C-alpha cells in the first residue's frame, strides 16, 4: 500500500512539473528573450505574473533630496517673511510683499502636489493623475500672474489682509 502511495505521489509530481513547464513556458521564453527577469531566492521573477514587485521610480536628486531640501527651506523662510510682512506695510516694502506672494504660491503648489501624489498617484490613476498634475501646474502659473497683477495694479497681498482684518 505504501508503495502505491509513493507511486501516486511521484506520478502527481511529474504531472505537476509538466503542467508548470507547459503553462509557464511561453512566459519563460518571453522573459529570457527580453532578458529582464532577476534571480532571487525562491526562483526567477517572470514579468507579468502575480509575483511582480512594485515598480519604483528612477532615483533622481532633483525629485528626491533636492526637492525635499528646497521644500523645507521654503517653509522655514516663510516664517521670518510672514513676520516681516506683518510688521511692515506692503506699500512701504513692496519687495517683501512680492517675495511673500511668490513664496506662498510656491509653498501652496508643493502642498497641492503632495496631495495629488498621495491620492491620485499616476501609478494607480494613469489618466487622472497626470491630468490633475498638469492642471495644477497651469493653475499655479495663472495664480502667479494674478498675484503679480494684484501686487502691481492694486494694493498687494499684505495690505489687503491688513485692511480687511480691520475693515
Amino acid at each position, binding site marked *: 500500500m505504501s508503495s502505491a502511495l509513493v507511486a501516486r505521489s511521484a506520478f502527481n509530481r511529474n504531472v505537476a512539473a509538466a503542467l508548470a513547464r507547459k503553462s509557464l513556458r511561453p512566459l519563460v521564453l518571453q522573459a529570457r528573450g527580453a532578458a529582464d527577469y532577476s534571480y532571487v531566492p525562491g526562483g526567477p521573477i517572470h514579468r507579468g505574473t502575480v509575483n511582480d514587485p512594485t515598480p519604483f521610480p528612477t532615483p533622481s536628486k532633483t525629485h528626491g533630496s533636492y526637492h525635499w531640501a528646497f521644500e523645507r527651506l521654503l517653509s522655514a523662510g516663510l516664517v521670518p517673511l510672514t513676520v516681516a510682512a506683518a510688521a511692515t506695510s506692503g506699500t512701504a516694502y513692496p519687495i517683501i510683499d512680492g517675495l511673500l506672494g511668490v513664496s506662498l504660491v510656491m509653498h501652496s503648489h508643493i502642498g497641492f502636489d503632495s496631495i495629488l501624489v498621495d491620492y491620485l498617484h499616476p501609478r494607480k490613476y494613469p489618466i487622472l493623475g497626470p491630468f490633475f498634475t498638469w492642471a495644477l501646474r497651469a493653475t499655479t502659473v495663472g495664480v502667479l500672474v494674478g498675484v503679480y497683477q*494684484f501686487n502691481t495694479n492694486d494694493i498687494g497681498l499684505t495690505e489687503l489682509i491688513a485692511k480687511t482684518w480691520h475693515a
Partner: protein
Amino acid sequence: MHSTRAVGLAPAFRQAALRPRNVARNAALRNLFVKRSIQTESFTPSAEQQILNQQRLSRPLSPVLSIYQPQLTWYGSIANRFTGAGLSFLLYGHALAYLVAPTVFDSTHIIELVGSLPEVVKYAGKIILAAPFAYHSLNGLRHLGWDIGRFLTLKGAYASGYAVLAGTAVSTIALLFV
C-alpha cells in the same frame, strides 16, 4: 500500547489501517484512508492575475479610516493638510478671480464688502481664518522640528502636538484682537 503513550491513538489507527493486510484487499477502505489530498485548481497566469485584481478591487484602501482609532498623530497630520489646502484654495481662488475679473475682485470692493458685514459675522470670519493659519504655522514648526531630528519619539510627538494645539488657541485669540 506503547504507541498511544506519546501522541494518542491516531498514529496507531493509521498504522493499522494502512497495513497491507487490512487495506490492500478492501478497495473502499483503501480510498477512505489514503485520499487525504486537497482539491486544487490550476490556472493560467492571466487567470490568476484576474482573480488577484478582483480581490484587490474589493479591498479597502489603506489606511482604513473608518476603523482607525482616533489619535493626535494622524488627526493632527490630516488637520495640517486640511488647513494648508484650505488657505491655499483661498489664495489661489482670489488670485485667479482677480486675474479673470479685476474690476469685480479688486481690493476696494473686497474691503467694502467685508466692512458692511455685521460684527458677529466679522468675528466669526476672523476665527475661521485665524485658527487654520495659526494651526498650520505652528504645526509647520513642529514638522521642521521633526526634520532636524527633534520630537521623533512618541512622547515628543504627543508633547509637541499638545503644545501646537495650545498655541493655536492662544494665537487665534491674539489674532482676533490684533
